């Protein structure tokens, strides 16, 4: 290597620096293209799905009931069934999850018990969806006697979405600086008063984001509802907003997609793709909503 004894020499490119920079450029391109390759499926596949689904994507498709053994008509009962189960499961998962998140961040002390709770949340989050399905079957359908119903499926979905709601609530609460809480405590406020007046209002955005993301997940999951209430076909009036009693079985969009693509021969291709697009579209739209909400919160920082 040439001796660097003048300032000019220092800034001149040496051979070794050339090689280093070239390696860096190559590496950057390699990794960059890896990233693009990963993301191509998202764009290309979505486009492909939409294109193939186009002929069937009509308003009728959404509001009509399946006819001719699923080979014609629409997906209304499945659409409404999904909305029901998602709503019910949220009604259970959100209060429990938010309160548990509050517990973990505001009340739990730094001891072994808290670590156990944390471990339980992490493990609950890692349970495969089919095991949730088995749990729902054993606990709600059989043991609790609810049978295969909207209720059983919703409860199963609730337990599945619970851990992520807990964690995102905890993270949202953590983002509120501790100094605010100290200031309130010094004014004589109790923990709950502080949470109610300062902490929760300033973390509600993060909590909502977590909830919206779980809405997507609950709508898209198939396995947990497969043996706990989702059914191949149920007769329902076209456009009926309340077709299922909580104790009845129901049709769901995710399960419907599965059955018509694997168990019903002769369904027109565009209908298959259209069903997939409706489900995917719902999920992507809500997810984008969550992302927009998150960005908006970040932009209006209050401190």
């Amino acid at each position, binding site marked *: 290597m040439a001796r660097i004894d003048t300032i000019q020499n220092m800034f001149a490119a040496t051979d070794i620096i050339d090689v280093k920079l070239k390696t860096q450029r190559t590496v950057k391109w390699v990794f960059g293209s890896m990233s693009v390759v990963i993301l191509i499926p998202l764009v290309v596949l979505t486009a492909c799905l939409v294109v193939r689904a186009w002929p069937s994507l009509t308003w009728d498709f959404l509001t009509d009931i399946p006819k001719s053994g699923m080979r014609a008509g629409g997906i209304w009962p499945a659409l409404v069934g999904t909305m029901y189960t998602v709503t019910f499961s949220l009604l259970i998962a959100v209060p429990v999850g938010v309160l548990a998140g509050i517990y973990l961040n505001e009340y739990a002390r730094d001891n072994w018990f808290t670590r156990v709770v944390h471990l339980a949340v992490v493990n609950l989050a890692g349970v495969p969806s089919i095991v949730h399905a088995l749990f729902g079957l054993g606990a709600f359908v059989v043991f609790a006697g609810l049978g295969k119903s909207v209720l059983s499926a919703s409860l199963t979905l609730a337990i599945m979405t619970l851990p992520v709601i807990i964690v995102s609530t905890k993270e949202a609460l953590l983002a509120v600086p501790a100094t605010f809480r*100290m*200031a309130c*405590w*010094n*004014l*004589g406020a*109790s923990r709950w008063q502080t949470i109610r007046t*300062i902490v929760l209002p300033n973390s509600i955005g993060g909590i909502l984001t977590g909830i919206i993301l779980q809405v997507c997940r609950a709508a898209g999951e198939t396995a947990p509802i497969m043996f706990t209430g989702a059914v191949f076909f149920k007769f329902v009036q076209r456009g009926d907003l309340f077709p299922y009693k909580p104790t009845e079985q129901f049709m769901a969009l995710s399960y419907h997609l599965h059955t018509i693509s694997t168990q019903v021969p002769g369904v027109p291709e565009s209908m298959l793709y259209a069903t997939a697009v409706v489900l995917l579209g719902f999920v992507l739209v809500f997810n984008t909503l969550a992302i927009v909400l998150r960005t908006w919160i970040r932009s209006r920082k209050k*401190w």
Partner: protein
Amino acid sequence: MVEAMTQSNYIDIEDLTVRYGGKAALDGVSISIPRNGVFAIIGPANSGKTTLLKCINRTIELEAGVSVKGRISIDGRDTRQIRDVYGLRRRIGMVFPLPVGLPLSIYDNVAYAPRMLKKHSKAELDETVERCLRQAALWDEVKDRLKSLGTLLSGGQQQRLTIARALSHDPEILCLDEFSIAIDPVTTMRIEDVLLELKKDMTIILVTNLVQQARRLSDNTCFLNMGKVVQDADTDTMFSDNPGNQLTYDYIHGVFG
């Protein structure tokens, strides 16, 4: 509830020892603070002054891994025996060196404590907010923008907002921990004037690194060093040429600390 005063000492701290893990932040501290007037606590950094304040309003209990021994009584009642700790904290106003504006409007910042206590009419709240902001020497700067966010004020303004909040629930005891660090000297003087007014019916405990501030304001001074009380006497004695304790003299005259 303020009981009729029979003793001459209002706050009695007896043999207070506070340990964080193995280290003692306060070691056998015994101080008596008389009712009304300004009681200054001076000492170098890490002498336990802030810990002492936290013990008085029992926010020390909110920290993990702390052991507290000893007794603090206010008006003869042991503070640790009081079940309604929130009521105790409402009797004590606390101002810490770090300015904290709550993420509410300025008005709501000051109205926070009164609102939590009971329902006030709008007129009452308005009056309380204005009074406290005036006492904190902040009213003139914010009176036209009471609805703007408290967290967007400057550091010095937020510190005064903290003082206003501390006054908002009408405390009998006001604790100030190095309140003037983030404030310019002129505003500090204005607040010191207010303190001199307030001390007629309020017990003010002033923790400060600025010995001259203690001299200006306080009637009694206590010198705390490394968790122990070095000397506790009336201000004139402490700041005289012969306080009776060499360490006190050295600290006040800047030999160390």
